[in-house]
């Protein structure tokens, strides 16, 4: 019963935070996303990057191709660069007929950052508090936490999905200031998913078009774990930390 009360309180609170109705948010997402992607149209640096890395099919972020001087650890623990949605909720919130096999492939990227994970995991775990299936061993990976919540009560499962997703809205944030400046991003969340991210202001010494290829990955991967572009490490870092800061704002309020 106590849980229900908390849930009510939460849903009563949530619309306050930059919540927008469906089409308005989607419209903003489209404009922000297209503008962000179109940076390449106006910035010469983007074209140079294009030439430097050839075909333009897969951006040069995979290991072995001049990148990842600071590897973006895909394994848990130390990786503090990634805020991710549990794979389950991600799937539940995707109405589009996407190949479900590919969804599963994104699972390894579900890595919780140190400061955020506590909050997010707690939010996921709390509704299933009844006979406590998992003896809340602190290091529960987010996906396992979501799984643990799913089987016991269908109510709890229904509850878990909206709670653990991001709150809809448009969020802007600056990153952690690097030696060479900082980046402000705008991230749009619709139906709990990241639908768009873009550079809002570029305060770096170099054009932010250098990291154009990273930008669409935030929505593609539903994660801040977008890699680093060689020669634009600082910009990549600033971008990732800005997206992380924006997504932290987008976390549902802790009960």
């Amino acid at each position, binding site marked *: 019963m106590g849980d229900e009360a908390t849930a009510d309180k939460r849903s009563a609170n949530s619309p306050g935070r930059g919540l927008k109705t469906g*089409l308005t948010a*989607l419209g903003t997402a*489209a404009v922000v996303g*297209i503008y962000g992607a*179109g940076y390449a149209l106006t910035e010469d640096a983007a074209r140079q990057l294009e030439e430097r890395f050839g075909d333009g099919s897969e951006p040069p972020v995979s290991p072995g191709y001049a990148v990842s001087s600071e590897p973006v650890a895909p394994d848990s623990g130390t990786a503090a660069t990634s805020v991710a949605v549990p794979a389950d909720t991600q799937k539940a919130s995707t109405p589009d007929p996407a190949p479900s096999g590919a969804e599963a492939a994104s699972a390894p990227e579900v890595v919780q950052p140190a400061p955020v994970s506590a909050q997010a995991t707690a939010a996921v775990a709390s509704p299933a508090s009844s006979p406590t299936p998992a003896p809340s061993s602190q290091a529960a990976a987010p996906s396992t936490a979501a799984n643990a919540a799913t089987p016991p009560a269908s109510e709890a499962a229904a509850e878990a999905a909206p709670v653990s997703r991001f709150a809809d809205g448009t969020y802007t944030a600056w990153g952690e200031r690097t030696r060479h400046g900082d980046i402000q991003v705008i991230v749009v969340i619709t139906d709990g998913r990241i639908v*768009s991210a873009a550079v809002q202001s570029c305060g770096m010494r170099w054009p932010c078009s250098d990291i154009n290829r990273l930008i669409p990955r935030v929505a*593609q991967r539903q994660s801040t774990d977008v890699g680093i572009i060689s020669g634009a490490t600082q910009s990549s870092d600033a971008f990732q930390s800005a997206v992380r800061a924006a997504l932290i704002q987008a976390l549902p309020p802790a009960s």
Partner: protein
Amino acid sequence: MSETCLHTFAAMGTVVSLTVNGWGAGADQLQEREARVRAAISWFRAVENVCSRFDPASELSRLSDRVSVPVPVSSMLFQLVEFALALARGTDGAFDPTIGKRMEARGFNRSHRTGETVITEVPVDESVSFRDVYLDPREQTITLSRPLLLDLGAVAKGLAVDLAARELSPLENYAVDAGGDLYLGGSNATGEPWLVGIRDPREHDGLVECLRLSNAAICTSGDYERSAGPGRHHVIDPRSGLSASLIASASVIAESALVADGLATAAMVLGPDGGLELLRRENADGLLITTDLQRYASPGMVRHLAIGGVPVTTPPDFSLA
């Protein structure tokens, strides 16, 4: 402070004007203004190149040649179609982007750019709908399950206005006007919110309302522009195939011109009751004027009305028709 700077050019079948007020007159500032105005103009070109139904080389046109194949598209086309489909779902098909062929068949087939008549090879099929278009966000592909011609006219112009406005936004006080689609940033030359008149749908010289707007978009869709003959204007009810007949003009205020234009177009088709219900649901404000000249306003519309109503002496900064 520099004077108002106005750039006018033709794009997307209309005349577009960009206005920037009171931006600094230093060399750096003038240079930035020029660069941003140029980029704003190039956004119109970019949207036109991607979304024109009249240009056989546009991405949109090339898409309609391929049926039942996932076609990789630019993020611009993908996101615009995604929005159009969401609007179609949200209005139960009162707005439908798959109406292109029927528009063409009804005589809306002349390229604004070249003046040439464009007839595509897509067959006329009254039963195609937005449900025949599938999106794959992961691969960024669009699949048409049947031969059809997309028409993004209603939303593409709104998108171009928004992109141009985003480009100009660091200049603080600016306006993008593209024949019925307007975005207003900051304030006008007298330092007040922009004054926008809504024209009388039947007596074009008169205004029915004057609004004060800042950092908002407003779009008006009317039954009097782009007519292909009596009773044949450009907003078609996708469900009947006939021109929408209940509303003479629909004006919608939203945070983006994309949304405002989409909602205004859908409201034209839905009529006064359905239109107001849509605006309520989407938390947008608007004024709908029926063909028998009754006015229907959303409750929040009163917040935007200029004090004193329609001015007798000062002309508004912009008039929407």
